[in-house]
């Protein structure tokens, strides 16, 4: 078990460079964009140049760029200080917003991942077991089609049909007005259940269905392909033929085949977390979902450097953490992984 501990430490330390690279990238990108937080707040109003300089000084934007870079980075790394917002409402700790928005994104991504893997599993396994059939062909076409889907387009389509026409689900937000769920984990579905409030749970569920379905469908195609191709390969492998030659019942052989086919899928899930969070930005925007992705989107307009940097660092941290979890799961299910 000491080996596993070392493995975890090594994998965990890989999170640091991930964060550094992403932070650096976003820092430069923000400075290259035209405008700055002060101009974004001021807009077209006339402010004397001296006053503008004073505002810049207060926001710390007059310092040399490298000083700004390290000030923020060290603040986050050493003190967990994500800075203060530079746009209205000005001067509030960014961490407060991040803390408030994070659970919404976590809830959405988990729900989307469940949708994506469920669809991927059913279509992928179905296609592989009936290889070459009409079902298989349609599943493969489906998986290619999902690559061409644009999240806002699919999202609006679902909003229109399932939301506005059939009125099955809500088209925006996380919760209806007037419903309150005490915050424990911040995940509304979980918190409402813990509070025993079935009404709130149903309401939260009817809000999350469309966004998670949108993001889930877009991500599912990759799973369909991956699961199908892996399973086809495993089903043709020697040890599956050997199982059959030993008279092992078919349902058992199928189970062993699926287990073997899933190892690359777990790896892929880890790699996909980044894509998932990227998709979350678009999904949250389409569905007015009050998560981190929408927060970034809102703050870009204000050139709110510290908020955007903070949110990106948090994203990078989540991606790193999820990859770490996937690596650990991978090591636990595949005996061939050495640690």
């Amino acid at each position, binding site marked *: 078990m000491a080996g596993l501990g070392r493995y975890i430490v090594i994998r965990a330390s890989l999170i640091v460079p991930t964060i550094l690279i992403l932070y650096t990238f976003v820092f430069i990108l923000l400075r290259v964009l035209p405008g700055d937080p002060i101009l974004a707040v001021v807009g077209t109003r006339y402010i004397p140049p001296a006053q503008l300089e004073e505002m810049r000084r207060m926001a710390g934007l007059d310092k040399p760029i490298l000083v700004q870079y390290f000030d923020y980075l060290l603040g986050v790394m050493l003190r967990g200080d994500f800075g203060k917002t530079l746009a209205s409402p000005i001067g509030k700790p960014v961490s407060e917003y991040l803390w408030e928005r994070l659970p919404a994104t976590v809830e959405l991504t988990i729900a989307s991942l469940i949708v994506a893997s469920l669809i991927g599993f059913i279509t992928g396994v179905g296609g592989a077991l009936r290889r070459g059939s009409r079902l298989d062909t349609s599943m493969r076409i489906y998986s290619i089609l999902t690559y061409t889907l644009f999240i806002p387009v699919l999202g609006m389509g679902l909003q229109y049909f399932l939301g506005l026409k059939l009125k099955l689900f809500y088209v925006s937000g996380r919760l209806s007005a007037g419903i309150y769920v005490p915050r424990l984990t911040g995940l509304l579905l979980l918190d409402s259940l813990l509070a025993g409030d079935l009404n709130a749970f149903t309401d939260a569920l009817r809000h999350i269905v469309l966004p998670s379905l949108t993001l889930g469908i877009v991500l599912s195609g990759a799973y369909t392909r991956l699961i199908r191709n892996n399973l086809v390969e495993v089903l043709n492998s*020697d040890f599956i033929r*050997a199982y059959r*030659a*030993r*008279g092992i019942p078919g349902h058992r052989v199928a189970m062993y085949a699926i287990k073997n086919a899933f190892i690359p899928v777990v790896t892929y899930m880890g790699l996909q977390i980044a894509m998932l969070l990227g998709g979350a930005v678009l999904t949250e925007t389409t569905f007015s979902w009050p998560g981190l992705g929408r927060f970034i989107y809102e703050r870009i307009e204000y050139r709110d450097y510290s908020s955007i940097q903070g949110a990106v660092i948090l994203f990078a941290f989540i991606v790193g953490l999820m990859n770490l979890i996937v690596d650990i799961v991978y090591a636990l299910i*595949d005996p061939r992984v050495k640690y």
Partner: protein
Amino acid sequence: MSNALLEVVNLKVYFYTLSGVVRAVDDVSLSVLPGEWIGIVGESGSGKSTLAYAIAKIVPPPGRIVGGKVKFMNRDLMELNEEAMRGIRGRHIGFVFQDPLTSLDPLRTVGDQLAEVIQVHLGVGREEAIREAGELLELVNIPRDRLNYYPHQLSGGQRQRIVIAISIALRPELLIADEPTTALDVIVQDQIMDLLKEVQMKGASIMLITHDVALAAEMANRIAIMYAGEIVEYGDTRSIINAPLHPYTAGLVNSVPDLWSAKTIKSIPGFPPDLRNPSPGCRFHPRCRQALSICINERPPMTIVEHDRCIACWLYLKR
């Protein structure tokens, strides 16, 4: 011949591929007696593995058994459904495949895989199955504590011995070994062959499928030579090796290098035919130096030339 353990009569296995029907096994007949060691010798693509799969009815798609009969322990296997066949595979017919590196599930311990076959067929509890699995490991000279090992932690030779342990776990009457040592080095090959010999001593019949004439000659008491989906000659090992009759058999025997003589190895010129569209005559005639005009158009029937020695070649048929 009703005392034969296995009787294959006019078996035909075709593969229905997009580019045509491949006649992988075409009209093959042979029998295996209880306790004997039979070698099926042929080059790659001659249909010898397909023949083995067909006996247990595990021909992979798009292959299908299209004709013939397989009688095993006085039962017609073609009549049995999948459920009944499962009771025969592993229980009465054991299989050892070519590549020991890939014929074990990489995600399960060898003990699990060994115990499973005992549990499935005998319906015993897990504890008893594991205990028996340990005994089987010792039987194939692997320490009992290797039960908890995963396949990747064992060497190729050990893995093949475990595969053999699994295939003999239920003392099957017939053990089909499909190129069991091709992926292993010669020292390990010897050990595996010794192990198979022991299995035979305990009463099982062994069907060794190989491309290696020398190996078959060393181990088997009877040999069947396959070429392009057909058996061209079979008989007892000594007469086949010492006096091969069929030109293809002669070619095979002469292509074995001999350490003690300076004779050069003679290869057989040409390539095996395309089995999607075989010639109506003898399938070997394009490569045969002694081909007659009849060989081009008429297929030579399998004929007994002497006691228990059969050959399908026009050279030895009285017309």
